[in-house]
């Protein structure tokens, strides 16, 4: 028996060593001998990958979108070309460039497409051999990327480019993208750290992160195509849809009372009880910073500081100039109650057609002149006639990250109470139904039993 145990332990160690060795990048030796020359080096073993990457959302910043109203079926939408009031700009109208000097004579290079895995020698969404070689594979795949080497600079010929870390050191540390590789771009979207979606992928804030999960554990990538959900305000996608049920199945609770809710209450409603980040911006009013530059006036909260709003969502989206948000109802048979972060932004609308106008940030950032920014953007888009008037747009963002620990998930009394989180009337319930729904009679004995067991 003792011999069997020793043999089993020995085999276990052998397996562990073999597994850990197999995890090392197989091309490490080649890179050490030959250096790293960009995607052409990766393509020695991964032929065709660069070309395939150019077809994905990370490169194109756009895709066809089939679940949002008022879009053209044959057109692609995303960060490349969308205008909405979290950013009021996009890769096209706020292209990476040197902005004019401010009052203090300072300038800087900035633009939406600093968050693009290329080098800006070719545009977002471009194709061909030049585009393939512009891809920054290592910014996602290197565990030792020197991020100080990735910055916008102006070349001698006047062109603004994004430099990359293409060192052998970075290339010899290839692996699955870690949280930080993703957060380089996804943390500061919307103008500041944790502004846009108000969630932090940290051990303290998210239970998956606390258990050592990284982004790509759930967003399990296939050929650089990322599975995503159907956030009312995150339209561009790689065509692979994912939900919590992908890992947790439709009846994940030991308690059948909770499982009975899953048909009409989304997982996120109970398990993501808070949100945060920027909740309002005013692009018609830029505030001057101490460094002499301007930024859009922004109202912001920390992560976990904001209560979500709850609404029926059937995974299709209402898209109008003044509202982007969930469609659905109690009676359509397809909806569940989801939590959303509500954001409201003020910007300029075109009085002539009611559409939201975009803004090139260069002039507003330097001088605070917002209408100059609107004029530049209109010029870029070929809009000849417009009359800018300020207005508001309300946007519902999906709340799909920052899953709270079990002890902080919502329980019966959070919703089934007169002062509960759900506005049952707004959700379409009648007065008599509401009377029952907000009564502790539904759960009194059950919760009492749990309370007594825990005392």
């Amino acid at each position, binding site marked *: 028996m003792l011999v069997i145990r020793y043999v089993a332990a020995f085999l276990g160690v052998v397996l562990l060593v073999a597994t850990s060795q197999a995890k090392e990048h197989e091309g490490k030796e080649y890179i050490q001998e030959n250096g790293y020359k960009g995607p052409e080096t990766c393509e020695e073993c991964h032929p065709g990958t660069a070309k395939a990457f150019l077809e994905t959302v990370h490169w194109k910043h756009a895709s066809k979108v089939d679940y949002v109203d008022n879009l053209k079926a044959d057109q692609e939408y995303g960060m490349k070309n969308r205008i909405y009031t979290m*950013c009021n700009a996009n890769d096209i109208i706020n292209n990476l460039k040197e902005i004019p000097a401010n009052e203090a004579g300072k300038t800087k290079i*900035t633009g939406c497409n600093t968050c693009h895995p290329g080098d800006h020698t070719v545009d977002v969404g471009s194709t061909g051999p030049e585009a393939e070689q512009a891809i920054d594979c290592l910014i996602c795949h290197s565990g030792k990327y020197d991020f100080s080497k990735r910055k916008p600079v102006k070349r001698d010929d006047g062109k603004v480019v994004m430099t990359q870390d293409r060192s052998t050191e970075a290339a010899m540390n290839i692996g699955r993208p870690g949280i*930080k590789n993703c957060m*380089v771009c996804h943390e*500061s*979207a*919307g*103008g*500041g750290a944790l*502004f846009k979606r108000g969630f932090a992928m940290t051990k303290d804030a998210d239970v998956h992160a606390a258990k050592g999960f990284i982004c790509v554990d759930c967003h399990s990538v296939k050929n650089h195509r990322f599975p995503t959900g159907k956030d009312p305000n995150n339209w561009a996608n790689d065509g692979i849809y994912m939900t919590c049920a992908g890992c947790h199945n439709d009846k994940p609770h030991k308690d059948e009372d909770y499982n009975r809710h899953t048909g009409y209450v989304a997982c996120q409603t109970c398990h993501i009880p808070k949100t945060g980040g920027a909740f309002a911006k005013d692009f018609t009013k830029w505030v001057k910073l101490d460094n002499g530059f301007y930024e859009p006036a922004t109202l912001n909260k920390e992560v976990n500081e904001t209560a979500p709003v709850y609404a029926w969502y059937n995974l299709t989206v209402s898209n109008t100039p003044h509202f982007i948000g969930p469609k659905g109802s109690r009676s359509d048979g397809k909806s569940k109650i989801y939590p959303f972060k509500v954001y409201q932004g003020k910007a300029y609308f075109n009085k002539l057609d009611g559409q939201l106008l975009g803004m090139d940030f260069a002039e507003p950032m330097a001088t605070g002149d917002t209408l100059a920014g609107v004029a530049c953007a209109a010029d870029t888009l070929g809009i000849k006639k417009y009359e800018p008037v300020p207005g508001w747009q309300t946007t519902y963002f999906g709340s799909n990250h920052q899953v709270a620990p079990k002890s902080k998930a919502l329980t019966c009394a959070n919703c089934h109470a007169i002062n509960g989180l759900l506005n049952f009337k707004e959700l379409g319930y009648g007065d008599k139904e509401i009377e029952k729904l907000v009564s502790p009679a539904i759960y009194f004995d059950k919760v009492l039993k749990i309370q007594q067991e825990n005392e």
Partner: protein
Amino acid sequence: MNKIFSVVILLAVLVVSSLTRVPSVSAEEAKMVGEISKITLAADGKSATAILKDTKTGDSVPIEIKDELTLDKLKDKRIVEGDEIRCKFDKQDGKNNSKTFVKTAGC
């Protein structure tokens, strides 16, 4: 006798608890925006000091950083000297202990 004994024990407990009571010092929270003029990482990698030049006053303010996330950003140069930082910190015992340390620039 029993009553006297109980009173003596109670008094002893009160004396001991008052001697062991740690005087509380409340930290004062402050915030600032400043450009990093210097970053010094501790040899063990578990802390760092960043000197921020306050954009309002021009003063150089040393900030002690101990949270893993920010330390990681300093080590892999996602945050470098010259970056402008929005910082919240606690002033305690003569030190400025970082609570949040993020770049002002977004996209």
